[in-house]
C-alpha cells in the first residue's frame, strides 16, 4: 500500500493528475462537452502511459470535468455538463448579486470536500467489497449484472419500455462476435473484423463524442459561436472557508448521499445534486433562499456531484460494475491496459489499485487548488469558437478509434455507434442502459453459461444464498418500481378526469 501511495505522489503521477484535472475542467466548462465525452476521447492517449498513470489522468478528467461544468453554470448560467444545472441556479444567482468569486470559490472547495470524502470511501469500501466479491461465483455475477441492469432500467425517468429496449440493444452489441461457449460467429453480417467483437473504445467514442461534435458543428453553423466572459475578481479563500465551516454538516450529509447514489448503477452525477438540493432545502432553516442564490444550496449541489464521482468508481473497481456512464467508459480504459475490473484486480495488481486510490485523493486536492486559484482564468477558455472545437473533436475521435489497435475498421464502428446514438436519441431511447448492457453483456453471458452448465435445477440456487439474496432484492425493486409507476399513472388519470 505504501508503495502505491509513494508512486501516486511521484512527480510523474502528480503531473498526469494536474494534466487530467486541467483538461477535465476545460472540457467540463465548455457547454456540450461532458465528463463521459472527455474520458472516451482521451482513453487512447493513456495507452502510452503506465496503467496507474493513465487511470489517475482519467480520474482527473472525470473529477475535473464534473467540477468544470459548474464554472460556465455559475458565470453564464449555461451548465457545462448536465450535472451542473443546480449549481447554475444557485451559483449564477450569486454571480448576479456580484458574488461570482465567492460562488466559484464555494464550488471549488465544496467540490474538493465531496471528492475527498468519496476518495476516502473509495479507499476503504472498495477493498472490503472486493474481498466479499472474491467469494462470488458465476451465479452471483449473473445476479449482480441483472441487478445493475434492472436498477438502470427502473431508475431512469424515461419510459420503462425505452429503458428495457436500450438494455436489450446493449446486450445485442455485446454479443456481436464469437460465441464464448460454442465458438459460433454471431451478428457478423459478413464482416470478418467483427469476429473479435465490437471495439469498446470505438463504440464509446461513437456514443459520446461524435454526436456532441455534430451538435457543436450545427450550433456553429447557426451562428452560436463563443460566449463572452468578463473579468472575474480573485476568490478570497478565507471567506469561502468560513462558508464551508458553517455548512460542514450539510457538506458531510451531501457527500455521503452523493457517494451512496454514485454506488448505484444509473444514478449518475446528473440527478444527484437535485436530490441533495431538495433534501437540504427541507432541512434548512432558510428554505426560501434555496434556488435564489443560496450558498448552502450551492455547497449541497457541489459536494454531492463530486462525491458521486468517487462513489461510481467503487462498484467499478470492486465488482467490475460501473456506477455511471462515465465509469462505464472507464472500463474501456482498464481493458485497454490489460486490467480486468473486479475483485481479482486487488489480487493481480494491488499496486495499481493503491496508487490509484492515493492518486484519486491527490486529484481531488489538486482540483480544489486549481479551482480556487485558476477557475477565473480557465473560464476565459469559453471564448474558443465552437466550430474549431467541433472539427478537432471529430479529428481526435477518429484518431482515437483508429489508434486503439491501428484498425481503420474501428472508425466505421465508431461512425455506426454515433449514428445509433443519434437515432436512439431521436426516438427517445436513453443511451445509458445501452452502454451498461454493452459493458456488462459479456460478463452476463459467460457467467450464465457457467451457471446453466453447473446447475441441475432451482435447488442449485438454494446453495447460493448470496445470489438468491441479490435476485430477491432485484425482484423487490421491480415490484416497488412497478407499484410506483402504476400509482403515478393512476394519479395522472385521476387528474385528467378531474
Amino acid at each position, binding site marked *: 500500500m505504501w508503495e502505491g501511495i509513494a508512486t501516486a505522489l511521484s512527480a510523474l503521477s502528480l503531473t498526469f493528475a494536474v494534466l487530467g484535472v486541467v483538461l477535465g475542467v476545460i472540457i467540463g466548462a465548455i457547454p456540450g462537452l461532458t465528463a463521459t465525452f472527455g474520458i472516451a476521447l482521451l482513453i487512447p492517449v493513456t495507452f502510452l502511459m503506465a496503467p496507474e498513470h493513465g487511470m489517475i489522468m482519467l480520474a482527473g478528467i472525470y473529477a475535473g470535468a464534473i467540477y468544470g461544468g459548474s464554472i460556465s453554470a455559475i458565470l453564464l448560467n449555461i451548465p457545462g455538463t448536465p450535472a451542473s444545472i443546480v449549481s447554475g441556479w444557485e451559483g449564477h444567482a450569486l454571480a448576479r448579486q456580484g458574488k461570482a468569486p465567492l460562488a466559484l470559490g464555494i464550488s471549488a472547495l465544496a467540490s474538493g470536500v465531496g471528492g475527498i470524502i468519496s476518495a476516502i470511501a473509495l479507499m476503504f469500501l472498495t477493498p472490503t467489497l472486493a474481498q466479499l466479491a472474491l467469494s462470488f461465483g458465476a451465479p452471483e455475477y449473473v445476479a449482480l449484472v441483472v441487478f445493475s441492469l434492472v436498477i438502470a432500467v427502473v431508475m431512469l425517468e424515461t419510459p420503462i419500455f425505452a429503458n428495457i429496449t436500450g438494455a436489450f440493444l446493449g446486450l445485442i452489441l455485446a454479443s456481436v462476435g464469437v460465441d464464448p461457449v460454442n465458438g459460433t460467429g454471431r451478428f457478423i453480417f459478413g464482416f470478418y473484423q467483427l469476429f473479435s467483437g465490437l471495439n469498446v473504445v470505438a463504440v464509446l467514442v461513437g456514443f459520446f463524442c461524435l454526436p456532441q461534435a455534430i451538435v457543436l458543428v*450545427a450550433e456553429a*453553423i*447557426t451562428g452560436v459561436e463563443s460566449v463572452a466572459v468578463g473579468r472575474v475578481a480573485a476568490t478570497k479563500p478565507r471567506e469561502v472557508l468560513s462558508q464551508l465551516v458553517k455548512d460542514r454538516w450539510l457538506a458531510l450529509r451531501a457527500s455521503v448521499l452523493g457517494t451512496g447514489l454514485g454506488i448505484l448503477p444509473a444514478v449518475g452525477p446528473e440527478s444527484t445534486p437535485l436530490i441533495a438540493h431538495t433534501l437540504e432545502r427541507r432541512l434548512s432553516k432558510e428554505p426560501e433562499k434555496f434556488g435564489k442564490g443560496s450558498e448552502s444550496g450551492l455547497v449541497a449541489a457541489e459536494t454531492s456531484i463530486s462525491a458521486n464521482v468517487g462513489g461510481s468508481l467503487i462498484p467499478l473497481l470492486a465488482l467490475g460494475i460501473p456506477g455511471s456512464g462515465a465509469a462505464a467508459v472507464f472500463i474501456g480504459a482498464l481493458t485497454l491496459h490489460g486490467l480486468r475490473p473486479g475483485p481479482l484486480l486487488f489480487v493481480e495488481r494491488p499496486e495499481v489499485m493503491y496508487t490509484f486510490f492515493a492518486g484519486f485523493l491527490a486529484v481531488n486536492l489538486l482540483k480544489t487548488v486549481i479551482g480556487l486559484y485558476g477557475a477565473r482564468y480557465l473560464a476565459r477558455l469559453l471564448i474558443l469558437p465552437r466550430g474549431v472545437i467541433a472539427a478537432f473533436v471529430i479529428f481526435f475521435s477518429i484518431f482515437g478509434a483508429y489508434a486503439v489497435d491501428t484498425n481503420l475498421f474501428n472508425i466505421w464502428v465508431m*461512425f455506426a455507434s454515433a449514428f445509433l446514438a443519434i*437515432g*436512439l436519441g431521436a*426516438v*427517445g431511447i436513453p*443511451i445509458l442502459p445501452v452502454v451498461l448492457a454493452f459493458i456488462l453483456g459479456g460478463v452476463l453471458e459467460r457467467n450464465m453459461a457457467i451457471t446453466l452448465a453447473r446447475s441441475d435445477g432451482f435447488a442449485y440456487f438454494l446453495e447460493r444464498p448470496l445470489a438468491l439474496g441479490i435476485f430477491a432484492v432485484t425482484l423487490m425493486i421491480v415490484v416497488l418500481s412497478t407499484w410506483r409507476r402504476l400509482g403515478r399513472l393512476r394519479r395522472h388519470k385521476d387528474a385528467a378526469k378531474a
Partner: protein
Amino acid sequence: MRLVFAGILVAVLAAIVWQSTEIRGSAAIYPMVVSIGALVCSVAFLLARLLAPAPQAEGPMIGLKLPAGKGLRLAAVAAVWLAYVVALPYAGFMVASWLALFVSLAITHGRPSLTEAFGTLAFVLVFAVLIKVVLYVPVPQAWPDHQLDMLLYDWL
C-alpha cells in the same frame, strides 16, 4: 426524422432476429432471446410513442432545427469526415488530415480563411511529428509522410 429512425431501428432489429434464427443448436438461445426481446420491446415502445400526442425526445440532436441551407452544410461536414476515412489509405495521414480539418472548418464557418489553412497545416505537421516520435502509432502513409519519416530519421 423520428419515423425514419424508428423504421431503421425496427428493420435492423428484425435483421438481427433473422440472423439469430440462422444460428444452430444451443448457441442460438441467448442471441435469440436478446434479439427478440429487443425487437418486441422496441416495437411496443415505438408504437406507444408514435400514438402519443406530445413526444419528448432526449438525444443530443433533438431540438436542433436547422434551416434547409444550413442543414446541407452540416451534411457536407459529415461527408468531409466520411471521405477522410476513405481517403486516408490513399492520401496518407498528413494530406488527408489537413484537407479534412481545413475543409470542415471552411464549411462550418461558411468561407475559407488563410489563418485556418495555415493553422490546420501547422497543427497537422506538429501532430504528425508527435505520432512518429512520441505516440508511435503507425498511420496510413503517402509521399509527404515518407518524406517526414526520412527527415526525422536523418535528424534523429
